[in-house]
């Protein structure tokens, strides 16, 4: 039996049935055509499908238990008061009202947005520069390994190493003191500097990934386009500004969305580097706020409400980014 694909939907479609009239005696009522419908699936395909479910099943169950269930539970708990020990009590939107009036949450949102607004443009800009610098370098594999090492290193380990560098008697403070001739800055103890310290570590640790992505994007630009621009007399800077950067912009856009969402979820660096939320809550981020409410104070309702607020904030910012892309992102095929 021949079964042809039903196209995009994948529904199997049977070949046309033999003509109902062919060979029928004259005057006899026409035989009804066999109804067109899904034919029986081949046994081997059904068996494969079942095994597919078996193999995907554990992953799906894990996702349901560890992602979907907590997500739904968080949405439910956002409307309740619960400390994990006593009876759950429904409170409507009271948690949201209280959180939106909570100075600590507002402080956390400001800190988180500052981290995102500093680390995303600086980090991506730096990554573009490094990627361009490495593009023609013969030893770029060595540099890529060096740049990528922090990406595959545990954030906790990275934060602890930087904690030593940032100490008042550490290497970084000592170097600044020697070069500039001022008292060593207290990076992690001074509320004005602690957030900057977090940004420095975040940019450093994510640089390698962005460099690799941008390098791949640069190498994917058609040489003919570059050649044509050169023939037209474009210099290196003009080539970069008017040809390569616009053609790289879809990748920059993708990276900016990922980096922004990642910045909004900043937690482990802050937790380890600045001992929880830093001096005077200077590095308190939204995710730290959620953690503190939930697991420090056992206030799971307000903690869940804060996490829903973070979700909405992330959606709004991502929507703004998608809106802005129309102006700044250049798609080669669209203009072709």
């Amino acid at each position, binding site marked *: 039996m021949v079964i042809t694909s039903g196209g995009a939907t994948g529904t199997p479609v049977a070949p046309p049935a033999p003509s109902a009239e062919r060979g029928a005696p004259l005057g006899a009522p026409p035989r009804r055509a066999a109804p067109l419908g899904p034919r029986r699936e081949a046994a081997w395909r059904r068996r494969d499908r079942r*095994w597919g479910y*078996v*193999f995907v*099943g*554990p992953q799906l*169950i*894990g996702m349901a*238990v560890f992602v979907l269930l907590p997500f739904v539970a968080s949405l439910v708990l956002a409307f309740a008061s619960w*400390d*994990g*020990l*006593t009876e759950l009590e429904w409170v409507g939107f009271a948690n949201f009202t209280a959180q939106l009036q909570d100075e600590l949450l507002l402080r956390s949102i400001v800190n988180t947005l500052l981290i995102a607004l500093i680390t995303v443009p600086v980090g991506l800009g730096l990554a573009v520069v490094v990627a361009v610098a490495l593009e023609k370098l013969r030893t770029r594999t060595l540099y890529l390994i060096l740049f990528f090492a922090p990406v595959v290193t545990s954030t906790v380990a990275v934060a602890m190493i930087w*904690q030593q560098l*940032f*100490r*008042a*008697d*550490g290497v970084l403070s000592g170097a600044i003191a020697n070069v500039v001739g001022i008292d060593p800055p*207290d990076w*992690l*103890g001074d509320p004005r500097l602690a957030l900057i310290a977090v940004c420095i570590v975040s940019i450093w640790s994510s640089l390698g990934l962005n460099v690799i992505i941008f390098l791949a994007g640069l190498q994917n630009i058609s040489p003919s386009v570059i050649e044509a621009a050169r023939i037209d007399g474009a210099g290196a800077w003009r080539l970069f500004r008017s040809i390569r950067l616009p053609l790289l912009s879809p990748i920059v856009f993708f990276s900016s969305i990922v980096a922004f969402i990642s910045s909004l979820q900043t937690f482990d660096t802050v937790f380890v580097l600045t001992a929880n939320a830093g*001096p*005077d*809550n200077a590095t308190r981020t939204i995710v730290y706020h959620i953690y*503190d409410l*939930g*697991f*420090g*104070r*056992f*206030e799971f309702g307000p903690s869940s409400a804060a996490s829903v607020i973070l979700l909405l904030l992330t959606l709004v910012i991502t929507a703004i980014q998608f809106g802005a892309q129309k102006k700044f992102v250049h798609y080669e095929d669209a203009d072709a």
Partner: protein
Amino acid sequence: MRRANSMTRRLLAVGAAGAMTVGLAACSGGGGGADEDTVVWSTWGTPEELTRFEEFNEEFMQRHPDITVELQPVASYGDYHSKLLAQLTSGTAPDVFYIGDDKIGQFVDAGVLLPLTDLMESDASLTDPDDFFPGLFGAAETDGEIYAAPNDSNPDVLWYDMQALEAAGITEDPATLAENGEWTTEKYLEMNDALAEAGLVGSMFWNYWATHYSWISAQGGTAYDESGTFVGNDDTATVDAVETLGDYFQDGTFVVADTMPEGAGADSVFVTHEAGFFAQGRYTIGTVSSAGEQDSYDIVRWPTPDGQAAPTGVATSYLAINGKTDAPDAAFTFWTEFLSAEGQVFRLSGGGNAVPSIAGADEVVLEDGYPAHAQTFLDMRDIGFEDYAPEARIPGLSTDISDLFLKLYEGKSDAQSTLDEVAALVAEKTAE
């Protein structure tokens, strides 16, 4: 590519499902003992403390061969209570567990702990309620029922550095002044002024409840009334005391230890003779001993206007029994022996880092003769107090209050405003 045959695929599927089941089971964590003769207990602690606890377990099982004891340690205090909460919620909590003094009130109010008063007064008990120093129960006792007892205690004494005092031209010895009833607030502040003039740190304090309430109490103020209402903002003695405290922090004579830079923290400042006083517990013995500078240090109680001793803060942790334990008898046997005078001597001897919470074990503090006035630890414990119950019952409240005091210490607020904000915060949180 060769396709796996049917049997191979079945085996793989069964393996994957099995691995997942094992994984999920592992995620559910341990729990209380498997039977009524097995006691699982949990605590946080340093590697040295946990080693000592394991030694206690071994000795206990030798005395009680019919009982098996298992320790579930958690390295970090910060992670401990959230794990315990998850275990209690899922019905897998240990039979016996530590609880911090900032969390005890909530666990008591939730009704998840075994009431202990009758058991403590029974013949099987080695720990009668009257054996413990009464100020240490704090929020572990409510409406006449005891739900947990203090493991040990740590009164915040004023450690002082004789070299630093000498460098500042101070000739009087604080401990001797205290013995003579002359250790007054005026004298203490004069010494701090002299230390500051000599370019040294006067005193270092951790920003937590024991610091501000010890100071208020020592200066004759009242933070909370008997009903649990914060009244410090309406009490003249409290406002004056907090104003003095704020002034000394703001001019840099007093320093908040929490905000000192990494690498130049309070411990290193103290052992390098750059500070005169440091409010800490008995665990400071380890700090000064490891620096090889112990001969330069002694301890004194908090100063008062008239030079007489006043109650000050004592930090502690509690041991409780799970209200749903399957091994209530074995759990209580372990609980009472752990907290008994003999148990505390075993745990705290050999340069221990705390002070017993029960009568009859004081020799562990005095046996080494260090510091010279070690008796001060015991005197301060005897009359000291735990964190006020309203704060201990509401997680995070004590921290929020400390944040308000930090604003005062940094010059961002004044004493009256700080106390008004604390009163409003306590009223708001206790009303919820």
